[in-house]
């Protein structure tokens, strides 16, 4: 019996026996796809015709001038179909599902972006689709629930545990262990049992490949630093992968600082002191847990970063010192979001805005000839209820109250 699927001391495949065979088959299908050049060609073709790849790299001239330091470039994953990098992974797994001959897909979702992307893929490929979403996230991201249902997916609100992403993952596994014959679990991030961390990173590597070419064309050299937010870590793995071999490029992952690392109410696994090695949800990584090994409640303004674990590949890159990890607080995120909208007319998702925070802290200290890239993992208009609420916007409130009245009187 082999011990594969490890990245340094992290990763593995801690699964119930009933899923053993399913993972053998998945591993086989994944390896076959990786060794088949036509698979990647088919993937690129799909992403350039059904989605909007390559996504642009935007030179944020106003922000660059504002900070007076490095030239800020934004990789526009928000312009992917469904508005986030999630589509890259989902469409890739969709092609794999077709090859495996399964007819139903399930997924967990936090912010709802992965759920929307999966529901979209299922509609396009003709799969049945069930999405598990923590009840708290359903409240935070109700518009995404609406779109998933409109595309024919069944959305199941998960009422267990902390009612967020980790609980949705547990519930998706519970479905999978019953229905693996027909069903593929479209894992949404670079976590979970092997081969998911590696497979998801592979599909997301399309981001970094494009960005490397674009920055050289537009700026004339590779970037000095790259910033990406880190929830599970798939957008970060997607843009970092290509640059791991480039000595001149520093990679910075930004975690959810929530109310501040010192408050304990955050989701910082790699840059804080609250996480420790653990095994849950099928893999070994740094988890936010207590001394007994019970997972803790996490907090972030962004549902997509509000997660107890992190990609085992990123835990390993952290060990190796190849990626630096920082945290951005909820308040800093709102400020960075506000500034980006005002200066550039671009609305980052709350998740992505974490990467903007750290870039804004560091850009002024850098040379104007240097370039930095922020991976804008998704668009923020999905967060309208959360953002409007956080800004305490009076005219929006009035609109909601009026709209509420028309529903309650009908």
């Amino acid at each position, binding site marked *: *019996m082999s011990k594969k699927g490890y990245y340094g001391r992290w990763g593995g495949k801690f699964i119930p*026996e009933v899923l053993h065979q*399913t993972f053998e088959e998945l591993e086989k299908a994944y390896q076959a796809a990786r060794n088949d050049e036509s698979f990647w060609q088919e993937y690129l073709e799909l992403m350039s015709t059904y989605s909007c790849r390559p996504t642009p790299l935007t030179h944020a001239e106003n922000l660059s001038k504002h900070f007076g330091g490095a030239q800020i470039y934004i990789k526009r994953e928000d312009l992917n179909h469904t508005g986030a990098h999630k589509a890259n992974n989902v469409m890739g797994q969709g092609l794999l599902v077709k090859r495996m001959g399964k007819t139903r897909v399930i997924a967990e979702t936090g912010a709802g972006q992965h759920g929307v992307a999966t529901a979209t893929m299922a509609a396009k490929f003709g799969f049945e689709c069930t999405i598990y979403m923590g009840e708290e996230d359903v409240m935070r991201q109700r518009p995404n629930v609406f779109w998933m249902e409109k595309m024919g997916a069944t959305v199941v609100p998960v009422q267990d545990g902390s009612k967020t992403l980790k609980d949705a993952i547990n519930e998706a596994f519970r479905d999978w*262990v019953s229905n693996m014959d027909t069903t593929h679990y479209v894992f949404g991030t670079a976590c979970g049992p092997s081969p998911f961390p590696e497979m998801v990173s592979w599909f997301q590597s399309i981001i970094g490949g494009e960005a490397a070419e674009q920055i050289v064309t537009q700026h004339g050299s590779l970037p000095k630093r790259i910033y990406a937010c880190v929830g599970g870590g798939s957008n970060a793995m997607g843009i970092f992968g290509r640059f791991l071999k480039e000595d001149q490029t520093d990679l910075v992952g930004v975690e959810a600082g929530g109310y501040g690392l010192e408050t304990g109410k955050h989701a910082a696994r790699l840059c804080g002191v609250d996480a*420790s090695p653990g095994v849950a949800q099928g893999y070994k990584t740094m*988890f936010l*847990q207590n001394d007994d090994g019970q997972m803790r409640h996490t907090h972030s303004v962004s549902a997509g970063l509000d997660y107890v674990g992190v990609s085992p590949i990123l835990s390993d890159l952290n060990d190796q010192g190849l990626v630096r990890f920082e945290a951005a607080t909820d308040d800093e995120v709102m400020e960075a979001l506000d500034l980006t909208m005002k200066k550039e007319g671009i609305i980052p998702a709350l998740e992505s805005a974490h990467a903007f925070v750290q870039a804004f802290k560091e850009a002024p200290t850098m040379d104007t000839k240097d370039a930095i890239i922020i991976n804008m993992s998704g668009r923020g208009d999905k967060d309208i209820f959360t953002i409007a609420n956080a800004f305490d916007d009076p005219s929006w409130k009035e609109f909601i109250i009026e709209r509420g009245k028309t529903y309650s009187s009908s």
Partner: protein
Amino acid sequence: MQLEAYLKERKQQKEILLMTHIVLGYPSFDTNREVIKQMVDNGVDCIELQIPFSEPMADGPVILKANQDSISGGTTIKECLEFGAEMVRTYSIPFLYMTYFNIVFKYGEVEFISKAADSGIAGLIIPDLPPEEGDNFAEKARAQNVAPILIYAPTTSDQRMQELDKYGAGFIYCTARKGVTGKQSEFGADFFAYLARCRQATTKPLAVGFGIQSRNDVQEITGKADMAVVGSRTITLVDQEGSDKVGPFIRELLGN
């Protein structure tokens, strides 16, 4: 090994053995004590003590809720391990720990096994620890005379059953169907073909769990398996009707 020998001996006198299950600290350790007393007094052959974990991936809604309520009520691992030792001192039947790997990993694999061994715990069931993972966990447990219980599922191939058998001790836990704990199982032709495959692969006693809820279910597997495992059903019973209903329920299951 000890547990296997005990079960085989016990099986000579009974047509089927019964393993019951409780979630430690749910609804309280005091209730756990009452329930266990009733189980032992009414002829249960061994008892699975589940140490609660916040992410019980293989469990259905009943046991999931019991895990979460126990933890939010303040149950600690230390209390669970003390309770386990107390039960071993109090009763003569074997007790096993069931938990998820993170609890063991966080405690320390070696330390956890030693603690279980010192307390006289007969076996360990860790559903998310396949033998490929962990630091030679099964071997270390066997070395200390604590049986690592390996699990077969209907999706397990013949070849893998034989492979798993090499790692395990005590008995083999056969999940009656795909899915999580707590849902009714159908015992059709497929199920009996699967049990026959299990029997081919190992000489250890076969325990069947997942969805065993009634006397009828126990009768279905009598003669084909060695031990029935009842989990979620007793938790629901205690929740709804109180711990003093456990004794009559056990007697009913065993047809006594």
